[in-house]
């Protein structure tokens, strides 16, 4: 789970903190190293959690069952183990158990009931993950769901979204398009992403594990590090091009959540600041501002690749690209002036700045 306030991993992380790696201009193996480093961090966190829980709960009858189940995960091949530990619900469980264990170890509470409850839910979690393991390793399109969501994910999504209670589902099913229809449209949007930016599409399923179609969502799209791997899409996109943008947008957030897991970018001791997003006028702290900046650089990269489409769609892509780029130019000085970045955060910002400068030159030469 993201942002565990762990010490940054140096110097290995520096190797993939390069513009060419992040934007797929070669060095695919370094991008793989980034994902591998995230997997290793998640597995190490699970091992630490296992060791602390087993040693701390010596008197609990729930310890043996957890220990046995945890060993089942550890005994998998490294590839399968990483897939299981990287499951969004598993990561949410780790996040909750980590927080509960931390509170007990630091004597912030003596009450073990929260942790015990999590241990008791662990076997059922493993069963659910086993049931949804993909048949092949090459699945590039994640499942799309509306109501049949893992209960741990529904626990983590508020306040982004409150999944309805059973009695409300029937009424909600009448709102928006059906899940089957949305799945067809999303599949088409992903096919277009594959044609437009193959390298991005090839990485899509590695970072996005579940798309939740939530037509009653109060956002256009949404995600958070506490449920990394899950993206929420409402019904506010006006076209398939818009949906392509939403998918790439949320994919890029996932990439940054993964980066932050192993490489904190914001200095938590740094100055507090609030910024207005140039694109929506929403207020954000530095972390949120940087997230938006990071994502919008990717979106400009995507939209500049939108070629050979119908004339009106081509025009919409160009207008949208110009709007996003204008916001990026406004945001860049704010971010460069901020004192709130860690050294690796500054390195990442420098990568984006380089990319933006290149994009700016391109746009000056080929105005949309």
């Amino acid at each position: 789970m993201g942002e565990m306030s762990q010490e940054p991993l140096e110097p290995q992380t520096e190797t993939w903190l390069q513009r060419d790696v992040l934007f797929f201009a070669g060095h695919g193996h370094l991008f793989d190293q980034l994902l591998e480093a995230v997997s290793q961090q998640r597995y190490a966190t699970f091992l630490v959690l296992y060791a602390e829980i087993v040693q701390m709960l010596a008197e609990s009858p729930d310890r043996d069952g957890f220990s046995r189940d945890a060993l089942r995960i550890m005994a998998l091949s490294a590839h399968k183990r990483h897939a299981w530990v990287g499951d969004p619900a598993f990561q949410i469980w780790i996040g909750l158990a980590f927080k509960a264990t931390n509170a007990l170890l630091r004597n912030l509470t003596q009450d073990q009931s929260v942790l015990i409850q999590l241990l008791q839910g662990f076997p059922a979690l493993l069963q659910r993950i086993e049931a949804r393991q993909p048949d092949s390793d090459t699945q590039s399109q994640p499942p799309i769901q509306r109501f049949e969501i893992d209960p741990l994910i529904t626990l983590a999504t508020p306040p982004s979204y409150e999944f309805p209670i059973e009695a409300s589902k029937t009424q909600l099913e009448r709102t928006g398009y059906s899940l089957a229809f949305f799945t067809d449209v999303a599949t088409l949007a992903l096919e277009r992403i594959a044609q437009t930016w193959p390298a991005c599409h090839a990485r899509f399923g590695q970072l996005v594990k579940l798309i939740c179609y939530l037509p009653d969502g109060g956002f256009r799209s949404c995600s958070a590090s506490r449920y990394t791997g899950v993206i929420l899409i409402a019904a506010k996109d006006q076209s398939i091009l818009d949906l392509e943008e939403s998918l790439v947008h949320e994919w890029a957030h996932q990439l940054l959540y993964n980066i932050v897991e192993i490489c904190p970018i914001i200095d938590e001791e740094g100055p507090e600041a609030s910024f207005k997003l140039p694109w929506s006028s929403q207020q954000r702290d530095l972390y949120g501002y940087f997230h938006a900046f990071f994502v919008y650089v990717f979106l400009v990269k995507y939209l500049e690749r939108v070629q050979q489409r119908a004339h009106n769609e081509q025009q919409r892509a160009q207008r949208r690209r110009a709007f996003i780029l204008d916001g990026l130019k406004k945001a860049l000085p704010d971010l460069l002036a901020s004192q709130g970045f860690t050294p690796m955060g500054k390195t990442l910002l420098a990568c984006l700045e380089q990319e933006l400068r290149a994009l700016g030159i391109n746009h000056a030469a080929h105005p949309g």
Partner: protein
Amino acid sequence: MTKVVNKHGLATVLGRAMMDPNFADALSQDPAAAASGMGVALSPDEVAAVKNLNTATLTSAAAAIRGNLGVHAIFDQQQQQARMD
């Protein structure tokens, strides 16, 4: 040293590795030998679980679970990237 077959031996061994980077390195390289030095016999599955473990990540996670989780700690219910534009 007499080896003890302990169903929680892996947790004991990991507990030491979390506190002792040199032992963590030894465990990662040769889990059976390192555990044996503590009098613990690891099963083949347990050996596989920690073989080639990235010890830097283990140390980092071990420090985090006993440390202050910080302002932007895990499971911050307020943190989200909701897009409205």
